[in-house]
């Protein structure tokens, strides 16, 4: 939740890599954004995902939903293609309003 709040009004970039360290399968999702004078990285999620492109896309959708106020809000649009390893760029401009609402007049049921 804090990450979603922090990323409001930012252009964020996502780096994904599928790893399988000693039998532990993970699709690691990292977010990167520009803060004054430097780039800043944040680990979003390391949950496992299937091997197909479709399953990987679903694996990205789930953690991106955790950044949003409500699941499937049109607030965090990913700009994505898929390959063995990909870097994804996302813009979070649209989430500003929803996050402002949450911080100023929060609703306990949404938290």
């Amino acid at each position, binding site marked *: *939740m804090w990450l979603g709040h922090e990323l409001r009004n930012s252009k964020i970039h996502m780096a994904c890599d599928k790893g399988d360290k000693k039998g532990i399968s993970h699709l690691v999702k990292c977010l990167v954004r520009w803060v004054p004078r430097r780039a800043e990285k944040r680990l979003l999620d390391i949950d496992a995902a299937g091997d197909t492109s479709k399953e990987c896309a679903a694996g990205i959708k789930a953690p991106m939903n955790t950044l949003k106020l409500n699941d499937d809000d049109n607030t965090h649009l990913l700009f994505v293609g898929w390959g063995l390893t990909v870097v994804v760029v996302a813009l979070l401009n649209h989430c500003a309003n929803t996050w402002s609402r949450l911080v100023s007049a929060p609703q306990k049921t949404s938290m």
Partner: protein
Amino acid sequence: MEPLGLCAPEDEHVIMACGIHCVQIELKNAVTNAFGEGGLDKVNALQMLHSMHRLQESVTRDEWQHILNLSSEFAFNCNPENIDGGELTPAQRRNRESFHNKHNHVLAFHCKFKKEQVDPSATKLKGTVLSKLQQPTLARWWTVGAAASFFFDHCLVIFHACQTAIDVFDSVQTPNDIASDLFAMMIDVENFVNMVLIRCFNKAHINQHFDWMQSCEDLTQELGCQAHNMAIRFFLTDRDIRGIMWGRSTEDCHKAVKSACKGREDGVTEHTRHFTKLNIFVNEARDLLHKHFPQWTSPKLMPAALSSEGPTACVVAAATLKRHVMPTFAADEGVADLMHAAGKMEFCSEAHKAAVNLTAFDAFIRRQLDSVDGNCSPAVIAAAERLCAGNVNLHETNHADDNGALLWSMHSTCLPVPSILQFVESGVKEAKHVSATDRSEAIQKCLAVVGSCTPLGKAKSINPKLSFNVNRILAVLRSSEMHASPHVQWSNNQECTQ
């Protein structure tokens, strides 16, 4: 992703593959297409490297070190001219002579084999034959190159170690089986020449670009976020791969080929065959480079290069604007004008730690831009125009002046684009550490996420007068407080509104 409603409009997003993986796949394609893939039923250079790793893994560490100790002693003291028969039986003498003949055959492969006697009591094993070798996998970073270098350096020791393993272990035991295969593969000069080619290619090409990608923090202060330098790196990589067949970079390979062809009746034909193989190897690598790296010179990612160092950024800006001549540079920009002497302008790049031939770079960038469709956005064109006019320097991070909005727009769009994904793996490592304590998947994830934003590095960021450990603890406390306080505030807000 599109059916899931996760994508934004096509003209706003960029997609690219990891730079390190691209370089790695260069090697993979070149090796596979020139020599074939490895496999238990295969006899080639790659399988030879795998067998060496398997042999090392098939015996205990102590056994392996003892074998290598004896083998290094043999390699150090061996005199091919004088074989000590001692009190051997005729059969033993025959076997020993047979081994020495094969050993001399391998010894003639190259003149640069290491013949150092190892110190079994040494604690520092790195660089010695006792160091543990990682499994050479083509898709795993530098492992194949490291294995090839190790094999080349300690070829004679490994050869003797194979014979020792064959002698010590029964024929039904795995080490004997592997050592027999490896021994047979090592005698074949073809495998050796191919292995040397892999080593040369790694040393001359792969290693330096890996090193740069893993160490450069130019402008962004973060490893792996070098999108603005990737177009220049593409140019440097292309230049390197063009020159790899000549000069000193493949000297060892040429020597190995020369030794392999020496004394053969079909020497000239063999030499031509090896040279053709080298050609195929390099061409495969270059084809792959030009398949994956042009993403960095596409209209969507080329704007990132406008934030590179001054002279290279100017060249990119002029090419983006399709100006007919390349820009000129003042003497204080670090550009050496060698047009009259050598027909080039040279810039010593601090970010790349290499000299960039700006004239060739200009031609290269224009070729790349001509080969792709699409135009840059109006904002990029405006930035390029201001850059060409000398009104802005995008290689600085001061957003406070008149160009602040432009700088912020360009930087926030282009600079955080990850150029490599190695840092992403740290997340997997965090998960692996956590999983060692048998925690559930959800807890593993939480701890990995928390760990990733916790300042655990070695820095005296809080108080330089205090020790590293104290600084680290204080930084962790401060970070925890910073992350927790908004939640406390939100919780309080909720209670107030209820």
